[in-house]
């Protein structure tokens, strides 16, 4: 096991940040923690990176205990905190050199590992880190976390605040890193990114809802989902919430995802109900469940 948590709990004063969390991450796996803000993702990261001591339970990273062997862990992991945490007044190159030096290595030694990423920011290597765009900052932070060839990489919301193109590139990089036998634990609030992980854990309010591959989680979804569209989105949701057979409804892009209580759903019945409410351009069709639907269902 590369990462293993068993019955981890942690509270801050009165708030229970995480409760009874257990999961394992296999070597070379890309494992995602999926949950909204405040779900406890950062607390899990901080416990695993030895920054916090759990109240209960035990955890190991690369075979080392997070409390007893914290020094060994600090030598062998890479950590990218949720907040941009590089030196803004140092240039790209100076930041990278600094992190290489404190880990007792050089940029040249592990250049092959960061090459794919670094070539993208190399044109700006003399620019101060504080003056980089959001996506560039994250790429630099990833380089800095990787420069000492860590066995396990912890990425806490690496794509928050990053544009869609850079997000996509970032995930492609993670996929490539995975091939170099680095175990990656990544957290994200974006459900679409969850599908890119090998396995994911859905977290809410400090508890794990489900752990499985993204496909399995979607397949377990018990109901048929309908894409419903109409001329007025706000009114559509309000009207649907008044429908007697409603099971769940929430907005999804230009449509709403609707599930019905009944086993045999009647398209025409819902349509006439909506028309009576004065909605036009009504459009109803079944669609496939995604991680977000599964999460909403589990979080109910």
């Amino acid at each position, binding site marked *: 096991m590369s990462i293993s948590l068993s019955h981890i709990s942690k509270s801050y004063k009165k708030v229970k940040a995480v409760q009874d969390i257990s999961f394992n991450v296999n070597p070379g796996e890309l494992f995602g923690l999926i949950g909204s803000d405040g779900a406890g993702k950062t607390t899990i990261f901080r416990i695993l990176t030895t920054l916090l001591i759990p109240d209960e339970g035990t955890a190991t990273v690369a075979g080392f205990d997070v409390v007893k062997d914290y020094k060994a862990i600090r030598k062998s992991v890479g950590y990218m*905190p949720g907040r941009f945490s590089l*030196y803004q007044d140092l240039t790209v190159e100076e930041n990278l050199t*600094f992190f290489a030096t404190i880990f007792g290595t050089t940029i040249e030694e592990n250049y092959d590992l960061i090459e794919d990423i670094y070539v993208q920011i190399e044109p700006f290597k003399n620019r101060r880190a504080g003056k980089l765009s959001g996506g560039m900052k994250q790429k630099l932070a990833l380089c800095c976390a990787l420069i000492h060839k860590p066995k396990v990489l912890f990425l806490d919301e690496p794509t928050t605040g990053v544009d869609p193109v850079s997000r996509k590139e970032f995930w492609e990089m993670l996929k490539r890193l995975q091939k170099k036998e680095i175990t990656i634990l990544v957290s994200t609030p974006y459900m679409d990114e969850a599908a890119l992980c090998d396995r994911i854990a859905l977290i809410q309010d400090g508890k794990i809802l489900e752990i499985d591959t993204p496909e399995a989680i979607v397949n377990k979804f018990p109901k048929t989902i309908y894409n419903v569209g109409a001329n007025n989105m706000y009114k559509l949701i309000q009207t649907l919430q008044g429908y007697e057979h409603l099971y769940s409804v929430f907005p999804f892009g230009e449509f709403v995802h609707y599930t019905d209580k009944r086993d045999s759903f009647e398209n025409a019945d819902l349509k006439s109900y909506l028309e009576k409410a004065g909605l036009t351009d009504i459009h109803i069709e079944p669609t496939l469940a995604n991680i977000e639907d599964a999460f909403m269902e589990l979080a109910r």
Partner: protein
Amino acid sequence: MKRFIGFIKKEFYHIFRDRRSLFILFGMPIAQILLFGFAITNEINNVDIAVLDHSKDATTEEIINKISASKYFTIKQMIAREADIETAFKKGKIKAVLNFEKDFSKNLIKEQKATIQIITDATDPNTANSITNYINSILQNYQQSKNKGIVMEYQIVPQTRMVYNPELKSVFMFVPGVMTIILMLVSAMMTSISITREKELGTMEILLVSPLKPFQVIIGKVVPYIFLSVINAAVIVLLSIFIFKMPVQGSLFLLGLESVLFIITSLALGILISTIAETQQAAMMISLMGLMLPVILLSGFIFPISSMPAPLQIISHIIPAKWFIIIIKAIMLKGVGLAFVWKETLILIGMTLFFIGLSIKKYKIRLE
């Protein structure tokens, strides 16, 4: 060791790229020493006074000439009537008025006694006091020169001698104090701010999750400031020697060593502050309130400790700056060696070890 050098290099980047901290580091010492040296002073020089001479005879003229010949006073105005004294003061330029009585010479010869009234503007009591003293001593001087050859039955002539600072230059008093304040401020405030900045920006989190040991981080933070503080101390000493003609009687080497000791004491305090403060602002407030005020008020820099109430005197013992000021005053002005200041030096060393021990104990290897 390579890690350590890398860390120190990074610290220098931080310092030299932040204009504000650069200004505090190098602008402030020079500004402060010049301010205290030139502007804030108890000496009087070229004070404007006015004279109301009711008698206008040879003696009064002689006295007036003597006073205006001294570099301390400039006679700005001759007043004709008593009523004009008030107006002269109210205009604000005149700090004192000399009022000679009528028939000054005659009275002096006939009755062996004549009166001069010295009226001073006491809105600034210190200056008023000094003016009175200076005029008195000029008058006494004049009297003695007149009485030469006449034998009096009893006469007590006090002969005062001011040692170590014969001209009573206040800059001699301020230099050790300002040097103390600056070393304290640069060392304690700047280190505590630079450590808390890492906490605030989240970089401390990454430093903790790295093979760097806590003491390496701390020493790495401290070394650049030792270096810069020593430069500062040297600048202050050079300024006071060359601009204020302050003699350094004792050994410069000993002065340097004691300064380094005090710098380390202040740095240890700075580290201690950074273990308590979570934000840069908190660190700055604690440094200013917790260090600057006691240094200014209780170290004996401005107010003599011996005239403080007993509880404050006791508190002053725990202020490192007090001991450092005693040491550097002794070295700079009295020219003594280590044999005379070993006690104070030991106290400073003890305090330093205490602060370092406490900060190592309080330093967090984790986030909480």
